[in-house]
């Protein structure tokens, strides 16, 4: 293995990673995923080599997901069986996705690989994020009291009986065939290996294809993230790529965040989880769409671009990505404050008053 350069850590670097970790953890604790996508570029902006950034991100992800899953399991929101079954198939998706990445990198180099990742971001986040956002807006228009019910697709999936493959899932209250959950887990892993956040497929798939509630799906995603993160960490640590200092500093911030995000889920209406997810997905999509012309120009698949223009577009893309995380975190904190106020008012109304 080639000798790796690990960066020198100072207070500024440490604080930066702690804060990004906190915000990422807050989002992950709330929507089950989605906080990690900004960490790899954040570490790389400090001079960390790409492979070390990916490995260290992975190494902070599985202990964070473990803490979040335990916390949300205490609130009765986790389907462990579903998480483990989807997590194992996601592991296969991660390995396949990593292989795709290697093939593309060999064939088209780093720029080709970046283009592939950005196109995957735009296509997946555009389709899934657009669908999630549309559904959320419809729910909001229908009134805040609207309950989550399985859609037509989920009801069809639940009605299919394939002998020898049926498993009972407590989160669904019914048996479904693992022939549906395995491809969904595989796709989650495939996306995780490509854009670092499998939950952008995993959570919507559990909600819309399997018929889970948003709360259960986002909490169960933490089990899937734990399984994927542990497998990924072993793979990268076997090659010596993990910078444990970076991983643990990010973990220091993200565990504060994930606890707060998990607490937040008990105060909000279920559609808030989908709202945060939709907003983040669509904002990140814009961020990645911005750099696609840069990579196309570098591959000479379109007219050349001025270096200054490329720098502006890449920097803008990174800033929009940070904005996506900040927007998600802002909505969560706002919803948590509103939810706590409402709970306090409710409690005051219910408490007995002394007779005058």
């Amino acid at each position, binding site marked *: *293995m080639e000798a*790796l350069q*690990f960066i020198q*850590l100072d207070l500024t670097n440490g604080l930066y990673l702690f804060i990004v970790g906190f915000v990422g953890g807050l989002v992950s604790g709330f929507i089950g995923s989605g906080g990690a996508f900004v960490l790899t570029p954040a570490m790389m902006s400090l001079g960390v080599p790409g492979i070390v950034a990916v490995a260290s991100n992975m*190494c*902070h992800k*599985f*202990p*964070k997901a*473990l*803490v979040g899953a*335990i*916390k949300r399991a*205490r*609130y009765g929101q986790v389907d462990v069986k579903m998480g483990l079954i989807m997590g194992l198939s996601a592991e296969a998706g991660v390995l396949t996705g990593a292989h795709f990445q290697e093939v593309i990198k060999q064939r088209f180099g780093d720029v080709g690989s970046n283009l592939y990742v950005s196109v995957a971001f735009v296509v997946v986040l555009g389709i899934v994020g657009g669908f999630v956002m549309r559904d959320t807006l419809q729910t909001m228009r229908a009134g805040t009291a609207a309950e989550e019910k399985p859609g037509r697709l989920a009801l069809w999936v639940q009605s299919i009986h394939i002998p020898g493959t049926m498993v009972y899932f407590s989160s669904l209250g019914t048996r479904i065939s693992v022939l549906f959950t395995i491809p969904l887990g595989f796709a989650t892993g495939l996306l995780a290996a490509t854009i670092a956040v499998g939950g952008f497929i995993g959570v919507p798939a559990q909600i819309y294809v399997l018929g889970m509630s948003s709360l259960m799906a986002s909490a169960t995603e933490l089990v899937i993230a734990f399984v994927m993160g*542990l497998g990924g*960490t*072993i793979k990268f*640590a*076997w*090659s*010596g*790529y*993990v*910078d*444990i*200092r970076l*991983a*643990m500093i990010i*973990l*220091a911030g993200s*565990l*504060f965040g*994930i*606890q*707060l995000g*998990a*607490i937040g889920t*008990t*105060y909000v209406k279920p559609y808030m989880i989908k709202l945060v997810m939709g907003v983040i997905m669509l904002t990140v999509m814009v961020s990645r769409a911005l750099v696609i012309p840069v990579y196309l120009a570098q591959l000479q698949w379109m007219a050349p671009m001025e270096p200054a223009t490329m720098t502006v577009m890449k920097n803008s893309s990174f800033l929009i990505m940070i904005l996506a995380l900040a927007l998600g975190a802002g909505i969560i904190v706002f919803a948590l404050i509103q*939810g*706590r106020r409402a*709970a*306090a008012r409710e*409690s005051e109304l219910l408490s007995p008053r002394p007779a005058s």
Partner: protein
Amino acid sequence: MASAPPDTRSYGKLLLWGGASVILYALLLIFEQSILAWSSRGGWFFILPVMIAFTFSLVHGRFTGEFWESLGIRAKN
């Protein structure tokens, strides 16, 4: 109620887990170079970063839970 003040035992737990967490992070930074050298050797040494991550998640995870609890920020019943 969700924001009821924590009791003395809760502060005790906060100090206990907070202290343990500070010790772990201090050890990580003091022995930074040795830990980094061993944990990045590859092969079966993969166990080292995995064990460190599990230990920190257990200790620091308990501390962060107690931290929000001590501020009265806890789940809605």
